[in-house]
Every structure is written in C-alpha cells, then in structure tokens.
C-alpha cells in the first residue's frame, strides 16, 4: 500500500510569491525523490474552474475542487503543492478538515510592497477600479492565524522561504532530511556538548 502523502497549501495575497515559491519547493521535493504535483491558481482556473468567477461562493468552490484533486493525489503518495490566494478563513478551515495532512504556508507581505511589486499590473488596475473583487484591494483577505509555516516574503529571500518550508516538513516528520545533510542542525557537536553540560549541572537531564 502506498504511503499517503500530504498537501502544502500556499496562501497569500496576489504577487506575494506563491507561484515562484511553489515552483522552487516542488523542485526541491522532486530532488529528494518524492512524487510531487503542483496545482497552480492560474492553471486551475483555466483547466478546471473556467465556469467560476470571483464571488465569495465561486472562490470557495474553486478552492474545494482543487482540494479534491490534491486529496486524490495524496492518496496515491503524491505530494500536492497548491498555490492559490485562498482568501477566506472558513474555506481554509474546511480544507484542513477535508485533507488528511494539510500544511498551510502563509506568504505574508505588506500590501504597499505588493502594490510596488505588481508584476502583472493587476493592483494598478484594481486601484483604478478596472478590476472588481481583487483580493487585497476590493475583496478581503483573511490572514491565517496559525499557519504551519509563516513566511514574510518581504524579509526572507526565496531560498530562505523554501528552506523554512522544507525545515518544517522535516521537523514534522513528513519528509526526510535532504541528501548530503544540510545545515539544519542548530548545534555542532561541540556546541551541543556545551549546552548539555549546562543542563546537566542544573540536574535537568
């Protein structure tokens, strides 16, 4: 029987870096020998949800459809990396209930930075009133309160963001350490000995 896999759900405002982080994370996990499928917001909208718009109900349905696919993939041992805005807290709670192992990754970034970044020009249009229901401008984004991984993409580099996510997956026992052993250990053996002695002197060990 295949070991069931898990879903990494990357949520955040438009332009927060979800697709970029998702791609790099997928590559990282593939290199570790895992089966991985990325489900990206734009592609899913085109292929699976072209009938849906951007109302609250439609966004909810869009997210649930993707979760269904992600869950099927998980069942056969494939890690799903989902990159979608997923703006509503109650939708994300439902995803958490539906998926067997749900890792919520919140890419946070101050809105003013995103407006500066605006790679697709959507913020500009939304601020000019040309796009309706644009998350962050005229549609709400409810930030996750307790995500498994929180990354401020304004402060972290892309590589640091991916390392933080894989670090969590390792700590949670969802994946093994990267081949060749990375620098994830907080202590060298000498440093660990120093701290252990400190605890031993206190009778804590």
């Amino acid at each position, binding site marked *: 029987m295949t070991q069931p896999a898990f879903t990494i759900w990357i949520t955040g405002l438009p332009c927060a870096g979800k697709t970029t982080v998702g791609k790099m994370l997928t590559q990282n996990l593939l290199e570790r020998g895992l089966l991985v499928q990325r489900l990206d917001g734009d592609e899913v909208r085109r292929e699976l949800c072209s009938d849906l718009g951007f109302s609250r109900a439609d966004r909810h349905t869009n997210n649930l459809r993707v979760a269904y696919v992600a869950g099927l993939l998980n069942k056969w041992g494939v890690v799903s990396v989902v990159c979608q805005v997923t703006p509503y807290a109650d939708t994300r709670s439902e995803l958490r209930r539906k998926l067997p192992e749900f890792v919520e990754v919140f890419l*946070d970034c101050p809105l003013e930075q995103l407006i500066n970044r605006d790679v697709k020009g959507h913020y500009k249009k939304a601020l000019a009133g040309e796009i309706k229901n644009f998350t*962050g401008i005229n549609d*709400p984004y409810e930030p996750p309160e307790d995500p498994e991984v929180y990354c401020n993409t304004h402060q972290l580099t892309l590589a640091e963001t991916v390392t933080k996510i894989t670090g969590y997956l390792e700590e949670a026992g969802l994946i093994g350490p990267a081949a060749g052993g990375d620098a994830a250990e907080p202590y060298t053996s000498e440093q660990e000995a120093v701290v252990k002695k400190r605890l031993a*002197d206190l*009778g804590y*060990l």
Partner: protein
Amino acid sequence: MGLLKRFFSKSPARSRVFVLGLDGVSHSMVSGSLGRSLVPNLTELVNGGTLLPMRSVLPTMSSVAWATYFTGVNPAKHGIFGFIDRHPNPFQAVMPTARDLKSLTLWEHLSRYHREIGVMGVPLTFPPKQVNGFMVGCFFSPDLASATFPVELAPRLMEMDYRLDVDTSLARDDLGAFLADLDETLSRRFLACRRLMAEEPWDFFQLNVITTDRINHFLWGPWEDGDEDLARAFSAFYRRLDAHIADLVGELPSGCQLVILSDHGFTRSAGVVYLNHWLEANGYLLLGMGKKELRNMHAETRAYSLAPGRIYINLEGREERGHVPSGRPYEDLREELIHRLGGLAHPETGQPLIKAVHKREDLYHGAHLGRAADLIIEPQTGFDFKADLGRADLVGSDHITGAHTIDDAFFFVNDIDLAPSEPITLLDAAPTILELMNLPAPEAMDGRSLL
C-alpha cells in the same frame, strides 16, 4: 477586514509594553512580609496594579513553561515537552530548540503586526528567530556569537560582557565564585537591557532574568535554614535584583505598560526521585548488555522515563523495539502504572511522592499530542523526578536544594485592576499582552485575555 485601511489610514497611537520575566520567582516572594524584606521596591511596585498567583504547566520546567507563555498554547500545540525529548525510532534523545516550536510565538505575532520588538534571554529562543526587531537567545545558546538576531548585535553585547547564563558547575565546587558570577551575570544583563531600551526602537520589550532560578536551586536550603553566610548572600542577591528593577522601571518611557511574571514557583527540595530505578526494580524497564543507556533498553521493556516524570510506554509500531501492543494492552498498562505509582511513598519517611499521574490526553490537546509522554507525573511539592539509570535508591538528594513548584508563579500588570473569575495560568499571559497592545489574540491560543 480592513487590510487596506490598516496600511493607508493613520494608525492609532501605539501601546508599548515592557515584560520582565523572573525565572522561578514565587508569588509569595514578591508579596506580603517576605516580599517586603526580600524585594521591597518590587513589592511596593506590585501594589500599584494587579498581582495574581498563576499556575504553571506540567512538566514544570522553564523551557516548557516559557514556550507555553510565549505561544499562548498548551504543549501538544507548541510541541515542547521538556529539556530533553526523544525520537522513538530509532531511539534518540534530543534537545529541543526554538526550531522545534510548532506554534507561532508572541514575537512572531507582534512582528506580523509590524510592531517593533526586543527580546532578551527568554528560554527556548535559541536559535533566535528573524523578527521585526532584535532577539538575544537564552541559555540554550552555545555562545553569544550565535545567540542574536541580527548577528550584528552580538559584538555590542560582547563589549558589555553580556552573559548567557551563570556557570552552575561553580555551585558545587566554589560557592564564592558562583555568587560572584550570579551578580556579574545579573548586573550585565540589566545594563545591556537598559542600553538597548534606550538605543533601539521598540513597542514590545521583554527581559528575562535566569539568575533567580539558579540561586533558588542552589541556595534555597541554606537560606531557609538561616545559614549565616549563605542566607545573607541569598538576601543580598535579591536586594540587588530589587535595585536593578527599580532603576529599570524608572527608565521606562511614560505610558509604557509594565508586566512582570514568573514561569514557576520554588520551594525547598524534598528529594530527588529516580523513576527509572522504580521502573527497573519492578520489571517494566529492562536494560540489556552494554552501557546503561535508554537506547540500549531490552526489547521486552514495557515502559521507560525521561526527566522530569515523563513515562513512555514501549509501544509496538512506535518505538524502536516496541513491545506493548496498542489498544487494550497499552491502556491496561497505563492504568496499572497510574494505580501503582499513585501509592508510591518515600521508602524511609513514608511520605507520598506523587500527587497525580496524568494520561497525556487529560493534560494536553493538540496536533502534537502523539509526541507527548504517555503518562506525566505531578509530583508532591518539593520532589523532583529524574531519569538517571543505575541509581541504587529510589529517592536521593544532592546539592540542589530548591525545587520547582507549579502553583505559585505570578503575573503582575501595573495600573490596571484585574479580577479574573477563575485562577489564571501561563496560557493567559500572551492573549493579555496582545490586548494591552490593542491587538487581537489569535483564536488558536488556548488562554484568555485577563483584561
């Protein structure tokens, strides 16, 4: 939800909070006649607000307790269960660090709301996290160079001869040197704090003092016994702490809210209980050939313990050489141990050693419950449970004469009258501090704001 508003409207006046953490200082030490003699300034200070006794957590250890404080959640959510934890398969004892935290910290919440923060010396802050401000790690940091965020802070602290902890091995070998080290460590910490308070921008600042826990561990007995020199040294230490606190409070910016709290209380040590001795003597723990270490336990072991008072069933499918099947046999064994340990008494004095033996699911709830010990012992006051192997007796004593207590930590906030309807716990501190800063407490937090 007003995200746009938050960035583009003028933000309301920010509230500043300073938190002083006093490790291992009991409620009774900062109130009443004991408080007036030991720390007179602090005792007067706490009259100008609300001082409450506060319950700590099980196991009552600084790392578990402070993690509970700064996440506002119970150990099965934040994932820290002791100074030592274990990977079951293959068996490996590990030392959890801040990287093992599974919940967001107060500092991360505040950073997300773009509050500027400074955190110094709070246990389980190594490795220091990237925050909107600065952090100086705790005594889990191997050295100062790796203890700070940002790294540029380390040389400034080195210049001030900042100390991460005292050298407690001195307490056994050279008490005079130990006392001098305590004073140096204490005064340098306050000095560094006052400089950073003045030089760095902050909305939230927390300074933790660890030397209180250290002196309590080693000098509690002589202090209670009225030992001529050591009792005087104990009192002198607290008077100096009291003066440092008065100086620091005098420098707080006007309107800054002050919170002072401890993570657990202290009492006279009644003895050290070697739980693995009992498990071995009663046939639950079998050690194979070779070095007496838990990783060499025999395949027919049914239970073993890690300090303090955490019992793991050698469960099939979970442990490296699991022996006890899950389901009924696992439950029966837990019941048997609860029953037998509940009556455990001091072999010489007949004193009961254990207040209660808890199943993990009765103490904790959360996603990481599966990593908690299967049974957690709540000791009778003063008894400390350890996991040494090869001890000749069930109960022993050593040069550590003070022991942690769970019920008499304290929480103080200035200028505000609080009248909580129920006794408070460490879980309530973080939601309260967030509310003092006009920020909402995340629903995932287990505690409640006391305001």
